[in-house]
């Protein structure tokens, strides 16, 4: 559980959830079902190695290379694997292209399904009930909360990842980026733009988050 900047007395007992997690971890380790060293590698992988910068490279390649983009849209997983990204929770990938008339947005209303090899682990809001409930019912309202307002003639398509397919949004290439290198383009691709709750940044808008 997060500690850090808080005002309460440190003699407080941990929350029920924290206690439950500790109890489960102890049991799993004691019974030999989980190797703590393997857990450390898993955590390190998704903290420092696999994250949305992978997806940003895929998007920048698609913006720069029309043939790659065609492969990406027709067989997402294979094209993503060309850049070395594949594996758990990315076995069956579908890439959705945003255009002037279509905006795609991804949610998992049943749980928190998310394309790990290209985006890493999902942000907390993606797993939270308010986003999951509202994304399908009021996507324009959700987009507004993320600071995005789209013209009314843009059809919003919400993809609910209820099965084993994992979705990556290919955001629109921002205007004024025609001369940019693939590497500089990747810096414009935000995590949220690949979930569909945001747009890619325009040059000069700052670093991708």
């Amino acid at each position, binding site marked *: 559980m997060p500690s850090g900047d808080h005002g309460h007395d440190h003699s407080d007992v941990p929350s029920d959830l924290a206690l439950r997690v500790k109890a489960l971890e102890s049991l799993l380790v004691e019974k030999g079902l989980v*190797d703590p060293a393997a857990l450390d590698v898993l955590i390190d992988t998704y903290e420092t190695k696999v994250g949305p910068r992978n997806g940003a490279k895929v998007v920048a390649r698609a913006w720069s290379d029309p043939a790659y983009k065609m492969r990406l849209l027709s067989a997402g997983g294979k094209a993503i694997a060309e850049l070395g990204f594949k*594996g758990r929770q990315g076995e069956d990938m579908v890439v959705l292209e945003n255009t002037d008339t279509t905006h795609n947005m991804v949610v998992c209303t049943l749980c928190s399904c998310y394309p790990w090899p290209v985006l890493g682990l999902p942000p907390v809001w993606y797993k939270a009930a308010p986003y999951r409930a509202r994304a399908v019912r009021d996507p324009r309202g959700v987009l507004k909360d993320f600071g995005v307002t789209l013209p009314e003639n843009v059809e919003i*398509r919400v*993809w*609910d990842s209820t099965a084993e397919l994992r979705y990556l949004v290919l955001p629109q290439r921002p205007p004024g980026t025609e001369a940019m290198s693939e590497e500089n383009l990747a810096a414009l691709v935000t995590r949220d733009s690949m979930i569909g709750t945001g747009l890619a940044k325009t040059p000069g808008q700052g670093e991708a988050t």
Partner: protein
Amino acid sequence: MPALKAADVEQALRKGGSARVDVDVAPKFKPGQRVAVRNLNPLGHIRAPRYVRGRSGTIDRDHGVFVFPDTHAAGTGKSPQHVYSVRFEASDVWGPGPPGDGAIYIDLWDDYLEPA
């Protein structure tokens, strides 16, 4: 099952574990076809979200053949079958809304669907 060792984590993550099944099963529906989600209401969790049970949509694409989690989780077999992306107009799910209120695409197995 032996615990995953630290040295094997990277390989295990890269290998993944697709639920796609390489068997020849005939699809029950075709892209463009109108379908309804069966109004199933079993005890426990299924992968057809409640908000579209009983609603009608259109098959957008056929993703191929996958393990059916409802039977697989219950230990009664993989029941390989087609999974489709089904397009539901937002107004068909929630009632009339503002113009341009879009659509929801939901991945559904054959066993959840019937002709509309």
